[in-house]
């Protein structure tokens, strides 16, 4: 089993005729993903690598029922595209578009909550369950994905899409496969964070360990640590926190509201401490991750 997506997941691509979307659609099909429909207003009747294009989500879903959608439209249209997907009952939205205005992100997430749907991203490279499917463009071309990702028992959650592939590649090189890998998006506010995915991985019998790639800013890591202290997990968790050098450069905050909302938290060193105190094995170097994963898997066995 995997989380969020498997070989049966039928996928819609909103903005499918765009240059980037058209490329990842082709490569995802080659990888085995079931992309069955696309939407670009005004382009109904066209096909993108054999995938039929529709003017609206409603038309697309009527012809081709889907469980997930990839939103790859220009930033000004993300809000509208996401609301259209939600209105027509899609429950998994992967937003790959970068630089979406904060107000639009918050509005989309409020709508998603009201509809009981999950949003991954924005600014996500997507989800991959190796050898089964990919929802998004993580890993690039199909043959490159095959080199970096391999099926197995380790979940990866990453704030950086590129580093998710790097870590999967390190694990694959070490003979360790992955269950499902999720690029949660690099923005300050994203729909799904570490702590939201943890219960899904815990419920997945295939997953035996978790690797988290962390970055400066926000409270995603601190919340994971709090959650793990209160709810010990069956999954050993390994984390790497990038950007420790920024501790020394921390710019002065603008205004006081940020300090009120986040407190003194958010720095890489603070994240390392919080994660360690919660029992997470924090890798001092990136290259240590495979060894820590092996040790964790051995001690659980």
């Amino acid at each position, binding site marked *: 089993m995997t989380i969020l997506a498997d070989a049966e997941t039928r996928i819609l691509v909103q903005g499918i005729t765009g240059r980037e979307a058209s490329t990842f659609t082709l490569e995802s099909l080659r990888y085995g993903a079931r992309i069955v429909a696309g939407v670009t207003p005004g382009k109904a009747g066209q096909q993108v690598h054999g995938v039929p294009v529709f003017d609206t989500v409603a038309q697309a879903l009527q012809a081709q029922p889907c469980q997930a959608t990839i939103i790859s439209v220009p*930033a*000004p249209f993300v809000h509208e595209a996401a609301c259209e997907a939600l209105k027509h009952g899609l429950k998994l939205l992967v937003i790959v578009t970068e*630089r*979406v*205005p*904060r*107000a*639009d992100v*918050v509005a989309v*997430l*409020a709508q998603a909550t009201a509809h009981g749907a999950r949003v991954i991203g924005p600014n996500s490279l997507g989800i991959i369950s190796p050898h089964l499917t990919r929802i998004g*463009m*993580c*890993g*690039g*071309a199909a043959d*490159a*994905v095959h*080199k*970096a990702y391999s099926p197995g028992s380790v979940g990866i959650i990453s*704030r*950086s*899409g*590129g*580093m998710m*592939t*790097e870590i999967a*590649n*390190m694990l694959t*090189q070490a003979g360790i496969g992955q269950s499902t890998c999720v690029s949660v998006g*690099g923005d*300050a*506010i994203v*729909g799904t964070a570490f702590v939201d995915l943890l219960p899904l991985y815990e419920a997945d019998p295939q997953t035996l360990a978790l690797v988290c*790639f962390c*970055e*400066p800013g*926000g*409270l*995603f890591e601190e*919340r994971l640590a709090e959650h793990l202290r209160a709810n010990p997990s069956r999954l050993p968790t390994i984390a*790497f926190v*990038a*950007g*420790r*050098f*920024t501790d020394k450069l921390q710019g*002065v905050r*603008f*205004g*006081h*509201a*940020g*300090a*009120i*909302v*986040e407190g003194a938290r958010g720095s890489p060193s603070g994240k390392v401490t919080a994660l360690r105190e919660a029992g997470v094995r924090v890798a001092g*170097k*990136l*290259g240590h991750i495979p060894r820590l994963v092996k040790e964790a898997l051995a001690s659980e066995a």
Partner: protein
Amino acid sequence: MKVLEFEAKALLREQGLKVPQGELAASAQEAANIARDLGRPVVIKAQVPTTGRMKAGGMRFADTPAEAAVMASELLSLEIKGFPVRTLLVEENISHVAEVFVGVTYDSVARTAILLASRSGGTDVESGERIMRRPVSDFKAGVDQAGREAASELGFEGQAFLNLSAAVARLIQSFAQWDALLLEINPLVLEASGQWCVADVHLELDPDAAYRHAALLARLPLSAREADRRTDFERQAAKIDSTDHRGVAGRLVPFGGNLGLLIGGGGASLTIMDAVFDTGLKPANYCEIGGNPSVWKIKELTKLILSQPGVDQLAVIMNVVSNTRADLVARGVIKGVVELGLRPSDVISAFRVPGSWEAEGQDILRHYRVRFYGRETSIDQVVEAIA
């Protein structure tokens, strides 16, 4: 973009909020003239896009135009947190009977906008005990109610209550209308008349929403000037980036060492910088490349980085690339080094760009006898090999 106080106050005045009478001055003489025209005690404030101005001595009070001139010339010689003081706001000093803190920003945990308010304003408000926090999930319905609840919770009554309710509601609406990331009034002061007046403001706008605020941004020229405080090195890098739309090569930040870095993407750049510092190497710069940059772009960046004083080595390191082509990166780096009249094998201390077109890239590097690494060598092993 952080908006300077003077420009933020002009916007707030149009939204119906009261702000003190005042003008901008760039010299002691101008400051004295403004103080004379106002005809009352003034406060003179350095216009810098940072917090902690009061504690850094960037705010002075003057009773007469002559005093204003002296203080203005002192302020204009200051540098506050790296910002040279170039402009001053000279405005009437508002006498008040109470002050509060009101702020609107985003809460990344609650994934919503949040209204903050406190009875004790001032420079240490975040350490205060009683701060009201209220999520604002809808910028249309419920804004008036949020204003009344804030005013009530802060303990005001009668006209002061009504006026504060309206001011808070207007602040929330302005935050939404301008696509702000932060709108903070500290303090908002109550005059004896029952009017609330904006004594100081911090406003930050969402750069990702700039495309829908051209008219608003055109009215903030001083803030735009302060926001663009790049070094020549950063300016040249940005110029290279914007000359060619293929790929991203933004965010070059100078670090002063001898080891030039051509690295990416975002998460990998952070990881590589940590490894560089951990091994005691001296980086010349931080950098993020990605999105399949062209040969020309990589060539120009290579030349720019290697032309900085004291830079004698270049490391090219990326995570396993999926979109960027390793061979184009290799070609660009080699071209740049050769055009500078240098030998690639002398200057390039490591090249590690595994992923798409890696075999073709390695052929080029092999030809020039450059040391390269593949996907089997981790990022920090590559950095350790340099050190």
